[in-house]
């Protein structure tokens, strides 16, 4: 589904990704953990070309993203992204946030998009908030709207960048629940998260990233309970 080959990314002189190789299978849930500044966000952002790649190759479902001929907008519309700080559009209602993509990118008729959007909002448990504005929602509700907004594009893959780390602890559960449902429906997901419970229950594999490389990978139980690399051990001992 996703193939990453020798991915490098530099900001000026600062090499942030120093050669990432990864193979992510269809319907797999990959969790990425690692210290702040290790390049987790940059890695995700390279997967939908929010950052242009310095060298290496990223292929998603047969489209080589790093090929200059690729239609970036089409690729992005097929890769959903959920941000730590939600980034909802504050000047649009919840429903408009969700329907904007289908209407403007896919050319879906307005009426059909509204029905579809309402269905997705129901799915994330916010059917009654369609006409509300984002500012009136809690963080957890905002993040669920953001998930619905991404789902509206019917993506092949969903990327989550610390989706719960800006939330009050009591709001984390609802968001994880929605993500869990998605995983159970067979969505391919790459999730940067330190929610060990989620990673263990839903994750198929965990990457531990440090200093721009994947230091260790394995199944969630092994990584969390029996890490091999000393850096992984030291990182986990700090966050757990």
């Amino acid at each position, binding site marked *: 589904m996703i193939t990453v080959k020798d991915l490098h990314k530099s900001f000026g002189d600062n090499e942030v990704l120093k050669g990432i190789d990864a193979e992510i299978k269809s319907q797999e849930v990959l969790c990425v953990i690692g210290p702040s500044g290790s390049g987790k966000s940059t890695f995700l952002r390279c997967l939908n070309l929010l950052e242009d790649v310095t060298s290496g190759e990223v292929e998603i479902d047969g489209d080589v993203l790093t090929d200059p001929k690729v239609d970036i*907008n089409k690729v*992005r519309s097929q890769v959903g*992204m959920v*941000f730590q700080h939600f*980034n909802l559009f504050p000047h649009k209602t919840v429903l408009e946030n969700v329907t904007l993509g289908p209407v*403007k*990118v896919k050319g879906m008729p307005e009426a059909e998009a509204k029905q579809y959007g309402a269905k997705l909002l129901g799915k994330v448990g916010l059917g009654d908030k369609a006409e509300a504005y984002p500012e009136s929602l809690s963080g957890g509700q905002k993040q669920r709207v953001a998930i619905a*907004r991404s789902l509206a594009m019917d993506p092949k893959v969903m990327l989550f960048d610390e989706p719960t780390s800006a939330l009050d602890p009591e709001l984390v559960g609802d968001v994880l629940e929605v993500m869990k449902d998605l995983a159970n429906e067979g969505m391919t997901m790459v999730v940067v998260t330190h929610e060990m419970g989620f990673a263990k229950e839903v994750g198929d594999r965990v990457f531990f990233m440090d200093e721009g490389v994947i230091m260790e990978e394995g199944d969630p139980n092994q990584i969390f309970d029996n890490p091999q690399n000393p850096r992984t051990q030291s990182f986990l001992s700090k966050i757990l």
Partner: protein
Amino acid sequence: MVLFWAPLQGLEDFLKSIFFRWISTVYVEVIRGTPILAQVLFIYYGLTAVNIGALTSAIIAITLNAGAYIAEIVRGAVHSIDKGQHEAGRAIGLTEKQTMRYIVWPQAFKRMIPPLGNQFIISLKDTSLFSVIAVGEVLYMAKQYYNSTFEIFETLIMVCIFYLIITIPTSIILRNVERKLDV
């Protein structure tokens, strides 16, 4: 005219070119860094060769002056929109143009309203400077009047009242617009 000048500069590709950046930086800095009175005189005397007349000089001067400030207001407002908004737009597959049109501009526009209103009132008052190049605006006429009648204070108070009659309703309208837009 003044109000259309700056937004027209929003043509994106052009905005991004280094050439344009350079020109617009110089333009904005020169206008902001020099007194408007000097600008008015400069345009008037600088363009005597082409003999366009005082009124046209005055219009050119105020347009260039307000244009620089408006350009800064527009730039500042667009710049103040969180980068995440742009990214979220691109992430759902909107093109750069669509992202600007549907996401960034509507939010930036709201933030422009108060400073634009402010600038409008300032520019309105700046027209009084045209008296120095004998454009028959209110202050110029007032000067001619009190030069012969010596009713200096009475005349100047009338001038101020004249300006207030225009600016106060403008302020009120602006405040209503702001409230409606919930800025």
